[in-house]
């Protein structure tokens, strides 16, 4: 592995930015160049968050390109469909099944898409669709904030990168009292 483009997408407050920091750090730990870019304007919760990470020998642009992203990590179910056009055909999409209803559905007439719609949308681009019960797993461990670590576990599994390397980076980033829980969440995501 000497090159990969990632897109992490979710809803404000889900920890997308921390997770993308970790992905970028793992790239560095692999001896590659890495860049990460996101837009965080509003501090209000509820908006879409989009964060790009690129690994390579020497990375130029901080953002990946439509149709050329290797790994799409959707922290929220319908966000996977919103961003799937960014994925390269045959790329990997990892989807947290958690639903966060948008305000447009409460104050307007927007309707949350069905599971079938989302699944079809994803499969129109790739058959490498991986669903993860991120929130449920995190809640079972006692802390909903662990969902993003579960997702990172799933990403590690889909990639040919030593899980211990991921764990090293994760452990360095979390407060010591949460290290054990994060390790557990990561292993759960990894399917072990």
């Amino acid at each position, binding site marked *: 592995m000497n090159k990969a483009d990632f897109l992490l997408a979710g*809803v*404000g407050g889900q920890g997308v930015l921390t997770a993308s*920091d970790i992905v*970028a*750090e793992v790239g*560095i730990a692999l001896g590659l*160049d*890495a*860049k*990460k*870019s*996101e*837009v*965080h*304007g*509003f*501090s*209000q*919760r*509820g*908006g*879409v968050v989009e964060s790009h990470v690129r690994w390579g020998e020497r*990375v*130029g*642009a*901080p*953002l*990946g*390109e*439509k*149709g*050329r992203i290797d790994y799409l990590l959707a922290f929220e179910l*319908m*966000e996977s*469909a*919103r*961003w*799937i*056009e960014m*994925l*390269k*055909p045959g790329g990997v999409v990892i989807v947290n099944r958690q639903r966060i*209803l*948008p*305000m*447009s*559905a*409460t*104050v*307007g007439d*927007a*309707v*949350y*898409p069905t599971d079938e*719609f989302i699944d079809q*949308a994803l499969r*129109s*681009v790739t058959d490498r669709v991986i669903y993860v019960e991120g929130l449920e797993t995190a809640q079972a461990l006692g802390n*909903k904030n662990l969902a993003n670590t579960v997702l990172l576990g799933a990403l590690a599994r889909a990639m040919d990168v030593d899980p211990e390397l991921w764990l090293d980076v994760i452990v360095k980033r979390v407060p010591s009292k949460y290290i054990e829980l994060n390790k557990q969440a990561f292993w759960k995501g990894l399917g072990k």
Partner: protein
Amino acid sequence: MKKLLSGNEAIALGAYLAGVKYASAYPGTPSTEILENLAKYDGVRSEWAPNEKVALDAAAGACYGGARALASMKHVGLNVASESLFYLAYTGVNGGLVIISADDPGAWSSQNEQDNRNYARFAKVPCIEPADSQESVDFLSTAFDLSEQFDTPVIFRTTTRISHSKSVVNVNGDQRVEHPGKKFSPDPSKYAMIPANARRRHPWVEDRLKRLGEWSSASAINRIEWGSKKIGVITSSVAYQYTREIFSEYSILKLGMSWPLPEKLIRDFASQVEKLVIVEELDPVYETEIRALGIPCVGKEFFPITNEFSLAVVRDGARKLGVATLEPVTTTSFATQVPTRPPGLCPGCPHRSTFYSLRKLKVRVAGDIGCYSIGVLPPFNAMDTIGCMGASIGIAQGMDAIGANSDKEPWVAVIGDSTFLHAGMPALANIVYNRGASTVLILDNDITAMTGQQENPGTGVTLSGTQGKKIDIEAVVRGMGVEDVFVVDAFDEPEVEKTIKQAIAIKDRPSVVIARGPCVFLPDYPAKFIDEVDDVKCNGCSLCFRVGCPAIFKGELDASTNKPKALIDPLLCVGCDVCLQVCPRDAIFRANN
């Protein structure tokens, strides 16, 4: 050691290493984290100023006094500080002075896409632009050296993509360079710009610009990466990163100094390539100037003037130029078939009651900039104008002055605490002085929230976390001569509504309503309960949907009304009780008292 740093973290590091002693800023995306990071270093006094002009004047004072100083702001902040930029261009500096301008191509979090390289040209001062985090560190020391060498303020321009992207920086235990500082030696011909001095100073400014251009031609801050000479590209900032990937075979002149242009270097480069292409984000600053030098080039006909660049945008232009590059991938888009996620006021936001009331009272609203700008969106639709910081109060006065602030359609101004202290105070003075009769609502959430909860003079805590002196907004308003000042608890919706009504009924003199309640992100946020809906009492009347809370959503249909009942997400609710107050059937209650 390799470290991943954001552009803003890198700028802070670069400023620290360059020996900055004083830094002042007003927050603004994408610049905010620069001062937040700089404040962590010892030996630098870092302050939040009430606005950008004040920040720049303070930095000017520090540099006149001999210290290396920095002022940081978002692009529109430089509009506010521009008056000071222009005198500084004439007076020059003593210690080095760098002005960080964080531009926002794409207007991700701004009211426009202005290109502040134009300010460098306008004010006749140099502009330096990094293309990644490493350059952000390195170029800052160059900027300070340049400032002192040429006796000029230097604009250091980043963009959202530079400031908010992380890339690798080699941190090799670099040491901060301490600058002893040159004492201020009184010299009115330099520091006091009366007309006679200004006239004498202007030719010197022109000459300085010429010398800066010569310096730039010889400096390593600009560099040529030779490739095929069939095409030569001139570019800078993040546009260089896209160019590097897409024009990888060709020759690239990467500018680190974007103003004044290195004429000699550009002529040399242009003379060696068959076709000269300019790839610059936003305005055709280089293109216009290079054309004016009589050098043929192409640019904006291939690379758009609007919106942020991306690989796709630059690739598209390159393809049209005949450069062999990847074809676009056509995957079906589902983005338009998925509901949008408009940003909303957070659950528990103290601004909610005000906008619920304003919508109900059907008043016209001159709005301002802050989290409360969300009031323009559904379900509130309670904001008619949003211009720049502080504009609300002036707009209200103008409406009032021409008689548009009528009983039938009253106008109010809505402004946040930080924005009031930034640019609202002179506007309120204007109303009082001219005997206007507007109502001004000051939404005091005790923080500068929109940019990520920064302290301000109204909170009384400084950037370094020490206790400053708290400016009492109510006392300020009274001190300005407003007699009718109402202070109301922002979490008490009926009271907020009643008070606004009372204030707008006053038609012969100004009135101010201060709605006080902390932002949910503050440690002293009061609510601790979770609200819940009694689905027997709820009949789907939908009134609570109008408080625009992300924690309330539509549940199952009510059997009698056939409308969706409300549901409250316990993971999101913080128990501010605003929905509870507006529910006419007492169907919402506190679940865990």
